């Protein structure tokens, strides 16, 4: 089978301006910084980033934001990175950030829906709020649910703790978060991982993400 291991710069070389990229992590815990750094070096622009949050200034997707690479950010919480508010309100047109906020559970489930081939999800979250505006409301057995659509991406940046050469990946602690969901929802999946091991070294009961989802493996994540 083909060799999936590349350097970070080789891994991101396929990404062009305007791409949609899912980035794992929750307040940068579980974000593959080596892939972010490579994307900063490549300096592609007009990206749509799908991530739980906006990272922190100088960390995670915050680096892409500071470098003016993000056109649209789809996230559930951006309050811990003040640069988001600055860029949303800037007068400089080319620096302007569009920010789409989604309830965290809905964000997770929409990504899972894309990964698992469902037509959308029916959630009680957001009913009666501005989140429901413009969305279809279904009444099922006396309760109301919002129809929320699957969320796909061109690329996913995943952060693994241990990954075998096929791409099977284990996450440690709370680094898991959105990573396994995004691995199934993007066309092309790049894993930045702390440790690369041979195929067969991982206990098949403990693997969180199957290697079938993984296109490229980059070692050296901290």
């Amino acid at each position: 089978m083909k060799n999936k291991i590349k350097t970070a710069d080789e891994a991101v070389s396929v990404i062009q301006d305007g791409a949609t990229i899912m980035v794992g992590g929750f307040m940068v815990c579980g974000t593959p910084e080596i892939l972010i750094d490579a994307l900063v070096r490549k300096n592609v622009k007009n990206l749509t980033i799908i991530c739980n949050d906006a990272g922190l200034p100088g960390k995670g997707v915050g680096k892409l934001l500071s470098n003016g690479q993000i056109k649209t950010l789809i996230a559930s919480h951006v309050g811990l990175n003040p640069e988001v508010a600055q860029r949303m309100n800037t007068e400089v047109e080319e620096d302007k950030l569009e920010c789409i906020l989604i309830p965290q559970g809905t964000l997770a489930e929409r990504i899972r829906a894309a990964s698992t081939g469902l037509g959308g999800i029916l959630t009680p979250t957001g009913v009666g709020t501005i989140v429901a505006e413009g969305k279809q409301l279904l009444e099922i057995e006396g309760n109301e649910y919002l129809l929320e659509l699957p969320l796909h991406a061109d690329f996913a940046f995943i952060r693994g703790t241990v990954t075998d050469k096929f791409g099977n990946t284990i996450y440690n602690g709370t680094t898991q978060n959105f990573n396994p969901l995004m691995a199934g929802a993007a066309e092309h999946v790049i894993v930045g991982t702390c440790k690369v091991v041979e195929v067969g070294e991982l206990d098949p009961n403990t693997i969180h993400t199957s290697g079938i989802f993984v296109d490229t493996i980059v070692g050296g994540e901290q």
Partner: protein
Amino acid sequence: MSDAKAIIAQRVAKELKDGNVVNLGIGLPTMVVNYLPEDVEIIFQSENGIMGMGPAAEEGCEDLDIMNAGAGYVTANPGAMYFDSATSFGIIRGRHVDVTVLGALQVDRHGNLASWIIPGKMVPGMGGSMDLVVGAKKVIIAMQHTQKGNHKILDECTLPYTAVKVVDEIVTEMGVMVVTPEGLLLTEYNPEYTLEQIQEATGAKLNISPDLKTML
């Protein structure tokens, strides 16, 4: 001020029962852990992906892979489990969290909650709050009764909702208010305040429980 917060956290702690699965919002709600009786064992969930969260990590001993939803380094208790965000919110939305304790910008007599946005001013995002208040079996709002003298407990919220008809109980430094079909029912009060002062500080009519107790 810190006294008020301590009173609130102490009172909320009494709502948590042995074996409860509890999700605490950041800020004031986090203080609740300091007031739990020793014989009450709570299983804390944090929506970023842990069941059985322990206390904050000691300085110098942080494991960078173990965080809570407020981006603080924490520990895992024996019997803890990690999971992904879909599983985490499946637990929340699926009514497997017994109690969530959150702060608020406004709450109204219908149990409507506004806590995530001040249009044109503060737009941090809702994070997991919308799912938590819709999914948790019991929603307790823990907050100071007023904000710089302005009412936070209202007839109708004026800020955009986090969710409608979800709040079960409001705990402030002045008292405990239960949301009922007839409006807000004051069930306990802080004797440092008169009932008149409490009503004055509240933007909705308070019904007084015939069973009214002191909250301390």
